[in-house]
């Protein structure tokens, strides 16, 4: 009677040990493997390399450059991991995916495929985005994701910071909270599996304060619970707070505190292992920023092709080569991008500007470097 459950237990244990043992050069288990034979590495070009000091054995990814571009071109659409539920960044309007992050994907699609509409937006939760990028399920992850070293090491390659954000707090206007010290003992709602959660724990621990966390996996529940009064405070990126505040029943009854407790550089990311794709996406981001610097807009892109400024002509492909031939892009790829979505400022203003579709958020650090902000891109040369 006991033998059957014991057998199943032992099989599961052995399977896990086999996986662990076969994952690297250093054997982590000495158990007999009756089901899984260690894979012969002659089949592929990969080999598990020796243990990194103090860390886990990491495998070298193969030279698979160019794979993703081929895949995207043969599929005909760009699979963009984003969201459909965050106003301003990724949401649905008249059944169409729109938003800051979605427009970045459309820019890449315009450059690579020539059609900004050839984008398939996959809605990912905070828990799913890492594995989706790791496995290459999405070609680009543009989902207000903070660039952190751990994520860079594990999830994929982060391209270029497109939105400088920070973590803040939203409280009811009549609560009387003005600083973090006022939040001692408060109940705080936060999304699980985010850097927000980690920063919150660190900030409170550092100040020796106490709080009761209430975590949910989906964003809607977090703010739903906050609005109901389940929590005294909700915390997230300032941009996300501005976005959800605009959706509250009474936005004026809530105030976003003037506190920033962390750096949250929101960056589009691509799967690791493909350098060409990495460079392509980065170049598109550089192009958007440089276009705003040179004053190229969606409206004047055609006439700017004959501009006096040689840098503008190079950007739009009229003369010279900024590297598009090495990357396999057409000379007028950037011109298509700007014509499709506009430059960086236009994308920002479309959703978050004074006449923004979602809400209004001062550009702050997201101004061009020439205007005192942090948006700066290498030249396209």
């Amino acid at each position, binding site marked *: *009677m*006991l033998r059957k*459950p014991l057998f*199943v*237990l032992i099989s*599961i*244990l052995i399977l*896990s040990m*086999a*996986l*662990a043992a*076969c*994952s*690297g050069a250093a054997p*982590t288990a000495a158990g007999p493997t009756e*089901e*899984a*034979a260690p*894979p012969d590495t002659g089949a592929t070009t*990969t080999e598990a390399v020796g243990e990194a000091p103090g860390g*886990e*054995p*990491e*495998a*070298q*990814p193969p030279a*698979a450059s160019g794979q993703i571009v081929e895949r995207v071109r043969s599929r005909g659409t760009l699979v963009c991991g984003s969201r459909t539920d965050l106003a301003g960044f990724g949401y649905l309007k008249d059944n169409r995916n729109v938003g800051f992050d979605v427009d970045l994907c459309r820019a890449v699609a315009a450059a690579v495929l020539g059609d900004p509409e050839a984008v398939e937006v996959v809605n990912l939760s*905070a*828990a799913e985005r*890492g*594995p989706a990028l*790791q*496995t290459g399920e999405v070609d680009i992850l543009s989902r207000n994701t903070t660039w952190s070293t751990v*994520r860079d090491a*594990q*999830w994929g390659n982060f391209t270029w910071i497109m939105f400088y954000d920070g973590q803040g707090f939203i409280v009811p206007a009549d609560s009387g909270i003005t600083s973090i010290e006022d*939040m*001692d*003992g*408060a109940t705080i709602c936060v999304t*699980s*599996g*985010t850097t927000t*959660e*980690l920063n*919150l724990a660190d900030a409170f*621990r550092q100040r020796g304060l106490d709080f009761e*966390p*209430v*975590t949910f*996996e989906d964003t809607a*529940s977090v703010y*739903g*619970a906050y609005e*109901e009064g*389940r929590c*005294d405070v909700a915390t997230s990126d300032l941009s996300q707070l501005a976005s959800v505040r605009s959706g509250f029943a009474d936005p004026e009854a809530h105030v976003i505190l003037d506190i920033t407790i962390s750096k949250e550089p929101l960056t589009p990311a691509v*799967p*690791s*292992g493909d350098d060409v794709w990495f460079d392509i996406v980065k170049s598109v981001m550089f192009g958007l920023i440089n276009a705003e610097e040179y004053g190229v807009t969606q409206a004047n892109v055609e006439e700017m092709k004959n501009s006096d400024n040689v840098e503008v002509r190079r950007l739009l492909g009229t003369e010279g080569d900024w590297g598009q031939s090495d990357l396999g892009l057409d000379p007028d790829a950037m011109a298509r991008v700007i014509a499709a979505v506009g430059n960086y400022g236009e994308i920002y203003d479309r959703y978050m500007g004074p006449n923004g579709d979602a809400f209004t958020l001062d550009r702050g650090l997201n101004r061009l470097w020439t205007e005192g902000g942090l948006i700066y891109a290498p030249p396209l040369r």
Partner: protein
Amino acid sequence: MTAEQPTYPPVSLRSQIPFWRDERVLRILAQVVSAILITGFVVWMVRNVIITAQQRGLSLGFRFLTQSAGFPIGESLIPYDPSMSFAYAFFVGVLNTLYVSSLGIIFATILGVFAGIARLSSNWLVSKLAQVYIEVHRNIPLLVLLYLWHSAVFLQLPRVQESIVWPGPVYLNQRGLYMTWPRLTETGQPFVIGFAAGLILAAVVWVLLSRLQTARGGNTHYVLISLVVLAVCTAAGWIISGGNPIALDVPELRGFNFRGGMHLSPEFAALLVGLVTYTSAFIADVVRAGIQAVPRGQVEAARALGLNYRQALSLVIMPQALRVIIPPLISQYLNLTKNSSLAAFIGFTELFFIGKTTINQAGRALQVILLVMAVYLVISLFTSLIMNLYNRRVQFVER
């Protein structure tokens, strides 16, 4: 009159059956072929996973478990802070799952038995009420029920500043139930020991005296005597501890929340209530089936012997009904344990929720899922082991 003896072909002819028609060979061949197919499939899958992981730069080890978790956990039975390891956070999740599952199993059984017997009552109103309850909870998906309890009931309670106050004091608000709870003081050790010893002694006395009563007849007052034993040992512990072993922890509103006392969060309450009501509906039907499986003659004979309905139920019907009830009951318990993983959607930090957070913070989806699966498997196997041992005692003994 001798019957014709059947003639068998000589041995040499029998072995000339071609092997593709020979039963013995075919049997062994089928086993070998399926073993090869299954093993080959498993090996191929595992190899595929390992090669793909290496290609994508995913690591497959379990050493990440020693890294610091970094994320806070709202409810924990043991002290936890974000600087502890992922393995520890996992352990907190396992404890939460066990806590919810064990409480859920106990309450669901009580409620289910009650509802099942009520369903069979001769009182029309009681029977109909029970039927409505059972049908509603069997036919609505559990996740919907959980959301209902959480958003529509527990979160709609009044705010902290306007809590409902019950004698105790016990405070009920949308952040949970805060109860005055006894707490052991420093001198309380002998009291606990006395109480525990009293429980054990009382149980022993109960068993001995009740067996004596059934064997010899008469009245040994075993209930009274064991209660007296318990009271005496507890009183002795109280006196030895100096007369002040227990202090009451009273919840007080300090700042944003109540501090002190025992706290049950709305997420935990919603999960427990949802699981209990859902599973009790299924258990009620199992109990009803078991009771109806007992032949009618048993009830009639019991009544003829002068037992009233309650005695007939407990002495004659239920022991026989248990044979039919226990096996499906086991699977309902396993269902309850596994369904507790739905708590991830209402924010209760049990094993699966912590697993998903770990995947997001540590990036190792495969290992975490394997661990979670292994834990649920162990819990379920353990539960069914215990219940099967009990089943052995009540099941039909076939000759």
